[in-house]
């Protein structure tokens, strides 16, 4: 059987085309297989995902393990904000399960170290502030379900996840809202000792302020507020290899409630602060190495190309020019396929800050005014909140709507 060069080329092109067919791409830039698209669409329909959540949950079901934590984090929060708590719980439990799976020595993690593989191709687990947020939010849902043991476990875990590098030990496990919520869950679990320990740690944190709203054994209501937009990841350095965070200042920095002519300020967590106090990442060294390689091969390409031009002008045979030219192409290819860029995938619907107000409310309920306070102390927003009578819950969690205008 004779096969012409053209036919061979055609077959090769056919394979290349079949491998690189156009279609939806994941948050990592990888192609989503048609069968995954089909099964994700079926899953969205079967689970009756509300229209406003469909795109995130479609991504969760179609992008596989590479991005499932990312979409579960985002989708869970979006679902909870819209009142679909069961959907949020399901998404976050999946994310927790996958975040907890340690990846040391796993093929996908090792692959990420390669110069030719971008960090965004690793299985997403989020930065420590995202993992802590995941546990904190999940803890609030356990609190709502009156499961105080698991709520306390989540708040403790939020602190465990706030891992920092060896160069920033003072910032590890310093989430004020996690300690305050742990104290509340511990009181509800008849465990005042753990609550006392939580207060002991909390009072040493940078974000602790004297007089802020904290729980006591009689607390039966917690108000949860979210304000502003969370940290935005961006890549600095020669090739975007250094992960950085941009803060979009929130117009509301804290919440206060008026109670008997007193203004009680919230316990607040600035998530941008948490994102930027973790110290250096170990992967930074790997990315820096990739960036140096990319830069070196880029420089070599320029040098070799320049040499080829000079050689072509001075040498008649053109052999040296050809060799230098080929070498320049080789280094150019190496440079082009080197990926030092930092992973910029992020839990992008996190707020700038989370605020908690702890109250003791009589059985008949109460009405109160809350105020959103700006950085200069001015009142940016004020609203009346009616807490209806409640009997069955030991702790009532009221998720106040996300504060707009930030």
């Amino acid at each position, binding site marked *: 059987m004779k*096969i012409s060069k053209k036919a061979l080329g055609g*077959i090769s092109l056919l394979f290349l085309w*079949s491998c690189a067919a156009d279609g939806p791409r994941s948050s990592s830039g990888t192609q989503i297989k048609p069968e995954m698209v089909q099964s994700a669409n079926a899953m969205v329909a079967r689970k009756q995902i509300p229209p406003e959540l469909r795109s995130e949950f479609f991504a969760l079901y179609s992008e596989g393990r590479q991005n499932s934590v990312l979409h579960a984090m985002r989708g869970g929060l979006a679902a909870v904000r819209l009142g679909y708590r069961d959907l949020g719980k399901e998404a976050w439990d999946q994310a*927790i399960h996958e975040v907890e*799976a*340690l*990846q040391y020595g796993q093929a996908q993690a090792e692959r990420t170290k390669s110069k030719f593989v971008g960090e965004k191709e690793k299985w997403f687990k989020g930065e420590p502030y995202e993992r802590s947020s995941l546990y904190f939010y999940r803890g609030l849902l356990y609190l709502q379900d009156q499961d105080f043991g698991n709520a*306390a*476990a989540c708040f403790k875990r939020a602190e465990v996840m706030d891992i920092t590098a060896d160069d920033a030990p003072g910032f590890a496990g310093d989430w004020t809202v996690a300690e305050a919520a742990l104290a509340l869950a511990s009181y509800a679990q008849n465990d005042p000792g753990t609550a006392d320990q939580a207060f002991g740690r909390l009072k040493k944190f940078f974000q602790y302020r004297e007089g802020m709203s904290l729980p006591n054994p009689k607390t039966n209501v917690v108000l949860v507020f979210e304000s502003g937009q969370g940290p935005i990841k961006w890549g600095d350095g020669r090739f975007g290899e250094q992960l950085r965070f941009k803060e979009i200042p929130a117009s509301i920095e804290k919440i206060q409630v008026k109670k008997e002519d007193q203004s009680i300020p919230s316990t607040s967590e600035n998530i941008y602060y948490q994102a930027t106090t973790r110290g250096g990442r*170990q992967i930074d060294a790997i990315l820096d190495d990739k960036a140096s390689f990319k830069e070196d091969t880029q420089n070599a390409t320029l040098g070799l190309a320049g040499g080829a031009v000079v050689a072509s002008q001075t040498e008649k045979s053109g052999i040296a020019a050809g060799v230098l030219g080929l070498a320049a192409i080789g280094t150019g290819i190496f440079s082009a396929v080197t990926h030092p860029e930092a992973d910029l995938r992020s839990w992008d619907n996190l707020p700038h800050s989370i605020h908690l107000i702890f109250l003791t409310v009589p059985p008949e309920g109460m009405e109160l005014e809350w105020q959103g306070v700006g950085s200069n102390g001015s009142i940016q927003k004020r609203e009346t909140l009616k807490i209806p009578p409640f009997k069955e819950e030991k702790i009532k969690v009221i998720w106040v709507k996300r504060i707009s205008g930030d």
Partner: protein
Amino acid sequence: MRKTLFLIVIVGGLIGCAKEEKSVDYVDPNAQGAVAGTGVESQDISAAAQKAVQSILMTPAIAGASQPPIVMITPVVNKSASPIDVSLYTTKVRGALMQYGTGKVRFLARDVSSKTNEREQELRESGAVHGGQERKAASYNYILTAELQGISASNSKGQSDYFLVSFKLVDSQDLLVWENQYEIKKEGRESAVYR
């Protein structure tokens, strides 16, 4: 030569585009998963419960009882830093105790049956149904509690979790008859790409 080249292209294409993966695998539920964390797992609780029941059966109050005492198992209390499925873990504890303690102790399952039995008794009393035995619910001689405590730590290399599973057997007069603890410690390293 051309044929060889053709075959290489075909095979290469097949390898590149069609990595065959098995979608489902059956695995031993008591085995540790291929990729694990340091959190407590149901098999840890189950193993602790097995050890607990063997110890409980040797306590004089149980071993010397004239007839198998009735024990009520309360839900597992979680005071660790790992969220758990309390219902699943309680079921695992009960399962282990049933497996190893049958004939020597009896277990009260009020949470499982009381509502149905009470409803049936109401129907019986109203004459809507007949037959069966008049309900006289059993009470317990002992309560068995299980509590999970733990300390978690993490650093720039990985994380560790220490768990203490405490079982207590308390009689109906609030006297502590038996207590034992089981320790579990797990350490894990995280890949540098996540640190």
